[in-house]
């Protein structure tokens, strides 16, 4: 079991309120991702749940029992840190066994569980090495191994992939998702990377300045962002925002249209502009279109390879039903 409930949780560092009153419910078995720009309070929120920081007010309940005053050791949670935080003076085996040793398991049980975890994570050959002798990806696996052996109520991940190179990051992302499918344990995962959030989460929690901007499934956030911030944060490349007469025409202060919801034509369309920088990915092509008079630059995504040169005239047509409308306060107009 691993249901985590935050009610009216706040956190102040001195006079600075980093988390204003916040309510959040994470269900058993859910993969929840906290995402937001750096300094949005997502890591602080995770540390509050972990018990590494005290809440200033409010309560945190784990499986219905109040855990607000409990020390981290008593919360039945496991955490994977950004720096992996492996114990450098212990072998991989001892690292993984440490939580079991602290929980006073008998040696036979410790050995059995360590072997099992090593098998799952492909660490069998490295059990007697020191963390210093491992690659980044292997260290990451050891950190995960240390977290899973104790069979905690929930796993907490604090930007675990940010120290890995791009290729490894994609691989580990899959491994963590697979792990979640297999264990079906609650996971809370903090990242600033919206791609990680979109690909891994059951539930995304978008945070800005300590406030929850929106909670929902990845596609829900993509399709129906509640406000300008979420609309701009989720999706890559970013949504195009247009203000002024064009927005007013649709009864909104700001309208947003995603790059993939604009079609292009060399001869006719709603908006006219010239091609600026084009980015060719092979599978897709992104054009940055200048001089439309709507926004400084509009990003357009097309499938496959389209050859347009810098300075070519281009016409853009948005899919009307995919236009998002926002009011003067930045909130979505339903």
């Amino acid at each position, binding site marked *: 079991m691993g249901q985590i409930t935050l009610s009216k949780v706040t956190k102040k560092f001195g006079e600075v309120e980093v988390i204003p009153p916040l309510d959040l419910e994470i269900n058993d078995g859910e993969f929840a991702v906290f995402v937001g720009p750096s300094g949005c309070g997502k890591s602080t929120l995770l540390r509050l749940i972990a018990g590494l920081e005290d809440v200033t007010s409010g309560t945190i309940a784990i499986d219905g029992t109040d855990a607000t005053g409990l020390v981290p050791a008593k919360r039945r949670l496991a955490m994977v840190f950004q720096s992996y935080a492996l114990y450098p003076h212990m072998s991989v085996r001892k690292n993984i066994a440490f939580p079991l040793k602290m929980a006073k398991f008998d040696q036979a049980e410790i050995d059995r569980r360590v072997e099992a975890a090593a098998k799952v994570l492909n660490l069998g050959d490295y059990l007697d090495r020191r963390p210093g002798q491992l690659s980044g990806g292997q260290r990451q696996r050891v950190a995960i191994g240390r977290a899973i052996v*104790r069979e905690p109520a929930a796993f907490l991940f604090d930007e675990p992939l940010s120290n890995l190179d791009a290729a490894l990051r994609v691989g580990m992302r899959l491994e963590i998702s697979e792990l979640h499918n297999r264990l079906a344990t609650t996971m809370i995962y903090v990242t600033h990377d919206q791609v990680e959030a979109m690909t891994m989460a059951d539930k995304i929690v978008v945070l800005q300045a300590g406030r929850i901007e929106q909670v929902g499934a990845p596609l829900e956030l993509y399709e129906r962002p509640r406000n300008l911030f979420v609309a701009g944060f989720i999706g890559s490349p970013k949504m195009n925002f247009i203000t002024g007469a064009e927005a007013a025409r649709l009864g909104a202060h700001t309208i947003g249209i995603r790059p993939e919801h604009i079609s292009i034509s060399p001869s006719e369309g709603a908006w006219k502009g010239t091609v600026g920088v084009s980015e060719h990915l092979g599978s897709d092509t992104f054009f940055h279109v200048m001089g439309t008079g709507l926004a400084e630059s509009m990003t357009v995504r097309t499938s496959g390879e389209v050859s347009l040169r810098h300075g070519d005239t281009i016409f853009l047509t948005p899919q009307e039903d995919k236009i998002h409308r926002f009011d003067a306060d930045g909130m979505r107009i339903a």
Partner: protein
Amino acid sequence: MARRVSTRRRVIVTAIAWAVAFLIFFPILWTFLTSFKTEGEAVATPPHFLFFNWTLENYIEVNERSDYFLHFMNSVVISVGSTVLGLIIAIPAAWSMAFVPGKRTKDVLMWMLSTKMLPPVGVLIPIFLLFKNTGLMDTRTGLVIILTLIDLPIIVWMLYTYFKEIPGEILEAARMDGAGLREEVIHILTPMAIPGIASTLLLNVILAWNEAFWTLNLTAANAAPLTAFIASYSSPEGLFYAKLSAASMMAIAPILILGWFSQKQLVRGLTFGAVK
């Protein structure tokens, strides 16, 4: 940085460096050589540099005639004792400042440092009178207490700079893994900090071994460590250079060897982490 230099230049620079180093080291070398001479050869004119009858008799005589061993043991007990006592007090303090820093941590650190800057002569009289009245005068215990207090700021500072280098996340990981404060300190912090603790120990033993204000003023025959024992050689003139050299070599050799191992830590410890 691999700099390209011509062999010619390298030869010249090497020669200069070795010459300078030899000059600086010469007094110690000369003491070493003299300690193996007879008293006659020690003051011979012109001086004998290498070609004399090497003898160990000075070492034997110093050991037999004086209580050299007593003073040596005094030095060991006082320097090691004050350092270990200092470490026991300083490890928890450095732990809290490095891992649970508060608003006042910096002030506390600076204040501790400021006590180190108190010139000893400013408190000479009260300490002298206190020692006389409490029977601590000329005891190892008394000196251990004083040296612990004067070295405590350096010990705390050195440990603090070493502890600061241990990432806080590792200790948090231990907490998440179910370790209490005691387990955290025993299983995680201490093993990781052993190199730092060892360096601190080493440097402070050296400093305490060579301390020569309190050891000279607060000891007489019983608790005098080697600093004070050697000072007693200052009175007689003339034919005693060989024995003085032998006694000196025995007093400095252990610390010279320890010191050579602790060059890096020395810089860090004595500059309070300002230069690493």
